[in-house]
């Protein structure tokens, strides 16, 4: 029996190899599995999966950046994200003992070439202990803006100064004199775009119609460390570019490529697990229903019909809204409604098989119902079961993303549907933030296609009549 089953699968594979789309599907599946296995090396943010919603994890990457490769197709380039270390630094120490004060002076030159200015510039200082600092941004034309601040608590801390968030008013103050006086008087300082003004020629129109000036923009930091234990741990200037990473970033600074990679694992997992359980249940249910016949068959048919009469997504929405399930419970709940898929076909095949003489012979030899079901009927349905398994994976993935889209996903994991929900919720669709909307949806589509290719290829083998006339 075992050998026969193996032969059957081998003939199946020999036929499968001849269907081109099926092989493409298998190759794509291989790619997805590779992505899952290589995820730690593929994604630049290794903890993206666990800390997707932890905004502190993403704080040092640019907001709303386009994918890197956008620059290949535009004439006006977006600035790339880069980290600048101090080009020169000077340390002076005054006082001694408990009144020691060390003054660190550092310069961070940034070469701005033509193109769109960066999305933001962030000055990042890691300080232990108390300190006070002054940050000065000097433009090529000599205009400058400054900001003073201090750290007052003991222990290590990181100061992040963002031009957009903290220095916007300074930029306005430095450049307003150059702007057309009538306009400068009425323009609301909070309404200007500080980054394009910062990199624009100081002339009338600097806020409304900025003309970018390439050159060296220098960030000067003067830091006074107060006390003997105070020290400077790190100092960097982060130029938050207009492009970043393979797929850009969203409005929460999250790297979308890392998100899509992390989502692959969950899509594959929940798709395969749901289809495996539900098809297994469905096949056994259908076989039992067809094999036993009589009132058992009638009863099982009625139960089946009740399940198929309930619209799938609405009931899942309400159940998720009421019970707030984790991803694992969600998989189980999906199985409760997905198992009906193969039942009808399996039942009719089982009805045919059970008329065979060898079933009767097995019965006559004293084989139990269970043995006949699992040794004689189910094995013959394996190819069909694989086909319907492949074809029900996309449904499970789409269902989970639909639930996530409404906001009912498991918030402890990253799925493609949840990335799309964030995108839709923050208006990415209407603002045209395509690099946030396209990749996760495309990933769902390609994974669906992968399993469709595999499933349909098996289907053509199982129903040879459909090929051609």
């Amino acid at each position, binding site marked *: 029996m075992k050998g026969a089953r193996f032969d059957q699968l081998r003939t199946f594979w020999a036929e499968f190899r001849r269907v081109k789309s099926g092989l493409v599907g298998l190759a794509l599946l291989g790619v997805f599995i590779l992505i899952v296995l290589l995820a730690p090396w593929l994604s630049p943010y290794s903890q993206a999966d666990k800390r997707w919603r932890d905004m502190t994890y993403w704080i040092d990457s640019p907001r709303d950046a386009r994918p890197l490769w956008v620059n290949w197709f535009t004439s006006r380039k977006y600035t790339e994200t880069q980290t600048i270390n101090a080009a020169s630094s000077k340390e002076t120490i005054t006082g001694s003992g408990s009144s020691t004060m060390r003054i660190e002076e550092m310069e961070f030159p940034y070469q701005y070439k033509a193109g769109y200015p960066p999305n933001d510039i962030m000055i990042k200082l890691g300080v232990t202990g108390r300190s006070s600092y002054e940050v000065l941004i000097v433009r090529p034309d000599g205009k400058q803006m400054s900001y003073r601040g201090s750290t007052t608590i003991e222990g290590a801390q990181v100061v992040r100064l963002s031009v957009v968030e903290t220095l916007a008013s300074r930029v306005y103050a430095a450049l307003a004199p150059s702007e057309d006086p009538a306009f400068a008087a009425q323009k609301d300082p909070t309404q200007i775009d500080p980054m394009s003004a910062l990199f624009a020629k100081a002339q009338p129109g600097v806020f409304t119609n900025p003309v970018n000036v390439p050159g060296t923009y220098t960030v000067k930091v003067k830091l006074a460390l107060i006390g003997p234990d105070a020290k400077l741990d790190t100092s960097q200037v982060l130029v938050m570019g207009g492009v970043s990473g393979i797929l850009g970033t969203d409005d929460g600074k999250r790297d979308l490529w890392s998100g899509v990679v992390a989502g692959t694992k969950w899509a594959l997992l929940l798709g395969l697990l749901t289809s495996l359980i539900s098809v297994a249940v469905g096949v056994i249910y259908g076989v039992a229903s067809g094999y036993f016949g009589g009132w058992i068959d009638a009863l099982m048919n009625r139960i089946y019909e009740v399940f198929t009469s309930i619209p799938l997504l609405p009931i899942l929405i309400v159940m998720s809204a009421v019970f707030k399930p984790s991803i694992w419970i969600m998989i189980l709940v999906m199985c409760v409604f997905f198992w009906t898929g193969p039942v009808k076909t399996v039942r009719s095949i089982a009805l045919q098989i059970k008329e065979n003489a060898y079933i009767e012979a097995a019965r006559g030899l004293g084989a139990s119902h269970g043995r006949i079901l699992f040794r004689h009927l189910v094995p013959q349905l394996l190819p069909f079961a694989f086909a319907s398994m492949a*074809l029900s994976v996309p449904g499970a993935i*789409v269902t989970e993303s639909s639930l996530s889209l409404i906001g009912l996903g498991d918030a402890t994991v990253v799925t493609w549907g949840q990335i799309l929900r964030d995108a839709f919720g923050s208006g990415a669709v209407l603002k045209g933030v395509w690099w946030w909307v396209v990749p996760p949806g495309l990933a769902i589509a390609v994974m669906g296609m992968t399993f469709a290719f595999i499933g349909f290829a098996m289907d053509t083998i199982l129903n040879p009549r459909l090929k051609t006339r």
Partner: protein
Amino acid sequence: MYWKYVVRRILYAALIMVVCVFIFSALFNTVADKVMRGQIDEQVKGEIVQIQKSNRGMHPEQLQAIRDQRTAQLYAQYHLNEPMMQRIMYRTLSSLVFNFGTSTQMKSLAGSNNVNTIIYERIPRTLLLFGVAAVLDIILGVWLGLVKARRAGKMMDRSTDLVTMVLFGLPLWWLGMMFIMLFAFAIPIFPSSAMHASPPPADALGNFLDLMHHLALPVITIVLFGFWGRAYITRNLVVSTLQEDFIMSARARGLSERRILFGHTLRSAAPPIVTMSLLALVVSIGGGLIFEGIFSWPGLGNLYWQAVQQNDVPVLMADLMVTTVLFIACLAFLDLIYGFLDPRVKVGGKA
């Protein structure tokens, strides 16, 4: 004899409906009770405040007594103190007569918080959107399916099969997002959301055209997404009919391919084409309902979004019940069409 089949099928649908409503009532009994108790407590609190205002000198204990009595009275009125099984039966019965109570947050257009009003004003909108889409979908799908079947195995057939497979695991709502980005943001030729411009045009013709303008993009999305599937079903049914003996004999008699296709093949393949297409459509609409939320189309599907966001359990449950009832009614209606088109179904009496 057809009417007998009709009666039996409708009775059977009604029975399934009762079972489904019972399952829902049992499944969501606890949460629905909790919400109802909350609503009653809220109502009694309001009444107590009123009483307090009208006669100020009332003793707190007296107020508490009135409060307890009123709460108990309302609990009894809504059968909240009875054992769980009776509660479930009571809820099943009141859902079956479409008595869904009041919402916790949401309001209808006129400001009513009666759940029935909220639901009823949305049903026609959903039927409009998906009805128009379904008609176009089937016309295009059957046409493409016939073209594919005539050239089975050729370039055209295989390339459209490929499209079917590519679209197989694609969420309809994502396609909606893409189309909004393309045709409402990049090339603004369609409105991105809602059913009417605000304010809507005053005259009837303007109003109608405005509705069509808003309807266009969602309908295009649904049709472009779905008609490949319809074509696939049609093609497979027609191709397997073309292999029947009577087609071979028709060919042997020298009939033209055209006559064979329309006169012989389609005549015998039509019933399953119609029902399988409609069935696939109804099932896909069950999953596509939330697609309305992408276009802010104010129908039953969008109601799921809003009810989830506002955590309005009564509306959510009523929406589920109404969707299920519509779904079952559609399935029964399909069987009736099938029985009408294919007399063999009635003889067995089995759907």
